[in-house]
């Protein structure tokens, strides 16, 4: 199982941005979502998740708001900004190119 440490640098940013592209989520939900979608392959540790979230927030790609959850507790919900959306497109395109390239190399032997 791939540990988040093994994620290519910057990939976590892409995952977070993508996860937030549909709706605002708090940290826990982001981690869960990535885990679910990846079929339990990608487990995002808190130690990487929160520094990444705060870094993205400082870069103004995502913004945060404290809101009540359905259970009535206050949680910090992150959502994508316009700049974040643009960044997501760029990074997603990059990723496609990169993974396609790697696939080519790996499978053509």
């Amino acid at each position, binding site marked *: 199982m791939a540990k988040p440490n093994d994620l290519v640098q910057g990939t976590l940013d892409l995952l977070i941005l993508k996860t937030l592209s549909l709706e605002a989520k*708090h*940290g*826990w939900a982001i*981690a869960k979502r990535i885990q679910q979608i990846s079929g339990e392959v990608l487990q995002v*540790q*808190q*130690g990487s998740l*929160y*520094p990444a979230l*705060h*870094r993205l*927030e*400082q*870069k*103004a790609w995502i913004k945060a708001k*404290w809101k009540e959850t359905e259970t009535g*507790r*206050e*949680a*910090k919900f992150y959502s994508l900004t316009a*700049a974040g959306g643009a960044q997501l497109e760029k990074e997603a395109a990059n990723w496609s190119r990169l993974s396609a390239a790697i696939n080519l190399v790996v499978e053509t032997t």
Partner: protein
Amino acid sequence: MLWIRRFWLRIQTLFRRHRSTQRLNDELQFHLDQQIAENLAAGMRPEEARHAAMRTFGNPTYLKEETRDTWGCVWLEQTTQDLRYAARTLRKSAGFTVVAVTTLALGIGANSAIFSLTNQILLSDLPAPHPEQLVILRSPGPNHGHTWGDIDQGAQSFSYPTYRDLRERATVFSGLLGCRRITVNVSGHGETQAAHADLVSGNFFQTLEVQPALGRLFTSSDESAPGGNTVAVLSYSYWSRQFGNDPSILDEPLTVNGVPLTVVGVARKGFFGVQIGLTPDLFIPVTMKAQMAPNPNQTLEDRTDRWLPVMGRLKAGITLARAQAELQPIYQPLLESDAKLLKLSGDDWKRYLSKPLLLAGGAHGRLVLQQGAEEPLLVLMSMVGLVLLIACANLAGLLVARGEARQREIGVRLAMGAKRARLIRQLLTESLLVATAGGVAGIALAWWCLNAIAAAIPQGNGMGVLANILDFRVLWFAIGLTLATTILFGLAPAMRATRLDLQSTLKDQGSNVSVGGSNLPLRKVLIVSQVALTAVLLAGAGLFARTLMNLEHANLGVNISHVLQFSVAPDLNGSTPAQTLAFADRARNEIAALPGVRSMSISTAPIFANDDYVSNFTPEGYVPQPGHVPQPGDDTDAMYDYIGPNYFSTMGIPLIAGREFSDSDAAESPQVCIINEKLAQRSFAGRNPIGLHITHGAGTLSRDLPMEIVGVVGDSKWDDARSDIAPFLYMPYSQDKNLGHLAFYIRTERDPSPMAAALRSLVQRLDPNLPVNNLRTLTEQLSHSMSNDRLVTVLSVSLALLAALLAALGLYGVLAYVVARRAREIGIRIALGGERADILRLVLGQGGRLTVVGAAIGIVVALVAMRWVGSLLYGVTAHDPLTFVGVVVLLALVSGAACYIPARRATRVDPLVALRYE
């Protein structure tokens, strides 16, 4: 505007830091709770669920720090932390801080002040656009005919026709100007004053590209009619000072030397002509020379009368060498016509025609006032540079010592997980804080020094040009140098300390056993160099102090106490020699009748004012060597002056034989003279000169009548206390055919100063249009002539003492450190019954060795270096043994004092405490 939003976010987090941290905790707690809830839902027991959740979290503190690090203001925050920490440590070691900051401030302050002054004097540019295009014309070589030069042996003076020919024929200049500084009498508004004027060519202002502040400036039409261009331009400062910036001065007449001149304009603010240092009051066309600077024997058109300094502005792109090459063929025919006029022949003809026309850079203008100031300034600059070096060495020593003393602290911090880079950064911050404090204090000190020095310099001599303007280039240089020192010597120990093998540091420093890789040798080298540099400075200061003492106690041959002097120039107002003679006689009688006057007299050239008249005087029976041509410095060469009756009794010059002049030595009486002993010995060795004759002029060439020698007087100094005794010949002023200027000397019963007002009003009454110049006591006049010596002495002694203080501090620091490190060893010695005297000797010996090595090096360097200052010394050789012995004694005393305190401390080491220290 993404960056604005990012910036805003950073600012927000910076100011909401506390709340943000709180929120981060909440956020992470939420995550943890979610995890626990999930674990519970998966069927774990509450305790187990909690622990499992915590495990996934890892180290929460680390996580929080990592997150906070993304907040973007970490750098700023850490710097604030570092600064706060540095300030705290510096405050704790106040001794180090005070010494370091003081050292820096003195080094930076003294250098900035001295260099600022020096640059003003030697390196300021003229107030004209493109000053680099300006050149000064020089023609060194023999000067026949009449030369009125100010500097450069007259090589920079040209006759007016020569200047005009050059201006018309030379093609390399966009302008060629002439400018002669003179003194004139300006009357009007009920009083008469002396003023400085520049006699200038019509194109003067155009060539220098000066704009008027009012009215117009000169053009070539103001140089059209000798004696007829009755116009004047005022300098801005004179306009402000004398006329309160009143524009109605325009087109008003101003009486200069008795000639009414029309003021046509005022030059722009800050324009001071072509000589740095003394701003002229007025500018007058060069064609007014006969009225403004009367010289009965020469006219403006006289090609053999050289008096006009010439400067040019080269056309763009023309080099000095090319201009020189193009000028020589133009200059050559002018020389030939001069030589014909002068009736030169043979070698004289050849030598005169080989006079070159050279160009010198004129960006700094004509350095007339600066002559004689350059060397003292260079010496001072070297001395102050040495002080900066000493300050840096001292600071380096302090920093190295401090770095070493903190090895243990650094070791502990490293052991506790501090990052090396962060530690170095912190130490660097501390060094920079010290450097900044030193820099700020240095600027303050520089300001203070500048004001003090500028205030101490009398106006009118070479250094009197200074203003208290701080030169920031120098300041930055000094700060840069100390910053480099701080970083280098502050960082090097830090780097070494942070690279330490932790275990050994913590262990070693705990016991006071020497550590490998100690910085002690470096510190010793620093001390030795400080002592050596100090020795050099002390030697210089000692020699200058001896010089000043010698000057102040020099045997002048003149009794200067209780004598007032002043001078007047009736000739400037058009007074004929006969009228001046009548004025002199009247003034003499009236002044002698004033109450409190013991005696009084007159000379034409004033004493102690560097005003020399030199000529050839051929004694009776003089047989020249065959083919001998009279030369300056020849065996018939003598200085001379015209004086009045009672001159020698008034000046306190002893009469050796014969008599003084009296009223009976009138214009038509037999020609008489009095000579000094030096002249008597040289020209009449073995003979009694009284009654013998001497002729003004060189042997057979003379057309003058022989004068009978009626007296011999004691030798006395003329120019200043420094000058040598010259052969001197005195003649009665009544027999001076060109009598023009007069200097009065009044010996009083009591303090002469209160008489000044009475003298001024007396002259005013005799001639209301005659300004009284240089009214002061002879003591003041002599002291004025020594002001450069005094300034050099005061500054060099201050600098040397400063250096000695710094060296003492450095020495003290090293020894105190050595004693502290060897406390255990000393304790053991004492415990084993070692004599305290031995301990004292041990420590003093260490300091003594450093001092001896430093002093020896310093003395050798000083012996070599002092040769450069030889010409500034008086009555003392550059290798004066007494001075050098004094330097050694002083160094011994200073180092003894610096060593004694740590040595005493060593003898008081309590063996029990020292041994228990571990």
